[in-house]
């Protein structure tokens, strides 16, 4: 059994430690602007891990993770908005005179932050129970979650007095008394996000290495067999979907104070599909792949959209297609192929000596 089990830290742990260390060293060399950008990418990496848990490991492609990300983000934004103004500006414009009851608790960070994790999980359970129990799977689930993304973005645009409508929420001032525009606050937020990413990574790694993780992989590879063996696969799927949603919500909550705006455009279909592409580029079914994919795609995206503002969507589209056709296992797959080649080259003389 022990040999079967993948150890949490094995011999090849140094790349992880190196990567973690460099996350904390980067604030020393990067400018505020670049660091802020990197902090944003870190939250995307958390979202990518969340999606990888449900797609890469469990084999259920959710195209609605932008919704969970945004729900977390909105929870945080409500707190930040109430820090800036007693009655948010968009409510004034819509003619509201009192704060709606469900806004009131969000005055406190210790309510907003847990809610950013709980609200997405609750919605995931509400969606997950009827769909997974009815054994809706494969692309049907993807289509339904895509519709969910559309419905939520329309709903949030429509409820202008409560959500800020199309423009969403912005103009945040401070958080726990620290001004968000201060360089030190930004750096602090960056460090918090980096720590959160590491915790989420270790947590997810632990989950996929436990017996539960094995069951998740088994659901991906042969759900019916598992069901015949007596496992309640839909229960596992609901749980991992909820966990994944709450991690995405956490990512959203960390995203808002760093980026300073959240609007329904983060909730629509495009961001949700983009999350899937991060995971696919990195290599699904590997947590480090999800993180790398989120970084790689977003670096490329911010570079290309700055350099070629008119044509960068072509690059994005070509990326989508080429990942699928040329590198179906992503960056990690390329790595493994490369490493295997080196090992093979080293092993051939070794075998020769044995003879």
């Amino acid at each position, binding site marked *: 059994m022990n040999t079967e089990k993948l150890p949490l830290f094995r011999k090849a742990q140094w790349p992880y430690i190196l990567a973690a260390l460099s996350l904390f060293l980067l604030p020393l060399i990067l400018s505020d602007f670049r660091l802020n950008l990197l902090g944003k990418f870190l939250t995307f990496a958390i979202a990518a891990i969340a999606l990888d848990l449900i*797609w890469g490991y469990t084999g259920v*492609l959710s*195209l609605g993770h932008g919704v969970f990300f945004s729900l977390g983000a909105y929870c945080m934004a409500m707190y930040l908005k109430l820090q800036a103004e007693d009655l948010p500006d968009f409510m004034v414009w819509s003619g509201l005179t009192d704060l709606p009851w469900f806004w009131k608790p969000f005055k406190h960070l210790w309510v907003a932050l847990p809610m950013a994790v709980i609200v997405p999980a609750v919605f995931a359970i509400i*969606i997950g129970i*009827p*769909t997974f*129990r*009815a*054994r*809706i799977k*494969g*692309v*049907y689930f*993807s*289509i*339904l979650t*895509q*519709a*969910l993304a*559309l*419905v939520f973005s*329309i*709903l949030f*645009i*429509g*409820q*202008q*007095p*409560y959500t800020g409508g199309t423009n969403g929420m912005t103009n945040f001032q401070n958080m726990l008394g620290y001004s968000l525009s201060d360089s030190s606050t930004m750096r602090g937020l960056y460090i918090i996000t980096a720590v959160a990413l590491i915790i989420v990574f270790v947590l997810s790694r632990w989950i996929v290495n436990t017996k539960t993780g094995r069951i998740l992989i088994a659901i991906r590879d042969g759900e*019916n067999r598992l069901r015949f063996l007596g496992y309640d696969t839909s229960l596992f799927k609901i749980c991992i979907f909820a966990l994944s949603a709450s991690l995405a919500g956490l990512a959203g909550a960390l995203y808002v104070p760093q980026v300073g705006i959240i609007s329904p455009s983060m909730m629509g*279909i495009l961001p949700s*599909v983009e999350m*899937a*592409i991060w995971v*696919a580029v990195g290599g699904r079914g590997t947590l480090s792949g999800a993180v790398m994919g989120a970084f790689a795609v977003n670096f490329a995206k911010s570079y290309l959209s700055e350099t070629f503002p*008119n*044509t960068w*969507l*072509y690059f*994005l*589209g*070509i*990326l*989508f*297609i080429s*990942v*699928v*056709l040329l590198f*179906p296992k992503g960056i990690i797959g390329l790595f493994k192929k490369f490493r295997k080649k080196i090992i093979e080259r080293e092993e051939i003389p070794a075998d020769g000596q044995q003879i």
Partner: protein
Amino acid sequence: MQSPGRGKSKGSKMSIEMIISQIFNGLSLSSILLLIALGLSITFGIMGVINFAHGEFLMVGAYTAYVLQKIFHGQDGGTYFLISLPVAFLVAGIVGFILEKSLIRFLYGRPYEGILATWGLSLIFQQTARNIFGANNVEVTSPSWLAGGIELMNGLQLPYNRLFIIAVAALSVFVMYLYIYNSSAGRRMRAVMQNRDMSACMGIKTKSVDSTTFAIGCGLAGVAGCVVSLLGSIGPSTGQNYIVDAFMVVVLGGVGKLSGTIAGAIMIGMASPLFEYVTTSSMGKVIVFALVIVFLQWKPSGLFALKTRALD
């Protein structure tokens, strides 16, 4: 939530004319959805590929109508529009055929990757349209003979353009019915849908069945694009407005059966304007989505699923 009062006042005014015109608008939306969903459902049934770029073929059809209007500029009372229907079918079909040969066929049996790749394709299509025709929407003038409508009773008019849309959809479905159930090509198509390996053994060229079917599906979406241009201006994201509803039609109706797609299209097409009318347009979408989920509790694989003994 936004305006329960307004919703109520609308509801109390609901008269027989309102009901009929709601049903009529619903039917014309159903017709458009049906044209889109037919292609989606058939390609998914045959190839296991969900084509997220399908809405962009609708856009191709819509822009075909626009280009033809420019070419025939100011010549007549709009016969160009009748020509644009078959032309849109051909253009969208040919584009679809080329794409099937070059890209889609590598995605067979890989549904998730298919989603990502075809989504990328749709981004490229939209950006291309933006570069050629500009980011702003353009107007296709309805032919003069489609202006006005039949006066059924006082205050109730059935516009000709919506009647025309319903007629086009009905004709397309009829032709598709003849093709699928009464032609040898359709028989081959159904055979491949039921059992690809066995049909290949019997000498059916499954690859050419695939590309023909895909092209026909895209062509139908092109026709849909043509008729959509009658209802309003068209733009690079026109396809996106309809595609999610069309997916819902496929989910509701089940895959690979004409009757299922028709039933699904009528259900979604009637339900969404109705609920949007009774509540608000955003709440209407939420209600329809919730109803779809509830419906799937009862029929998880859609109304008319192909009967099969396979587990997956």
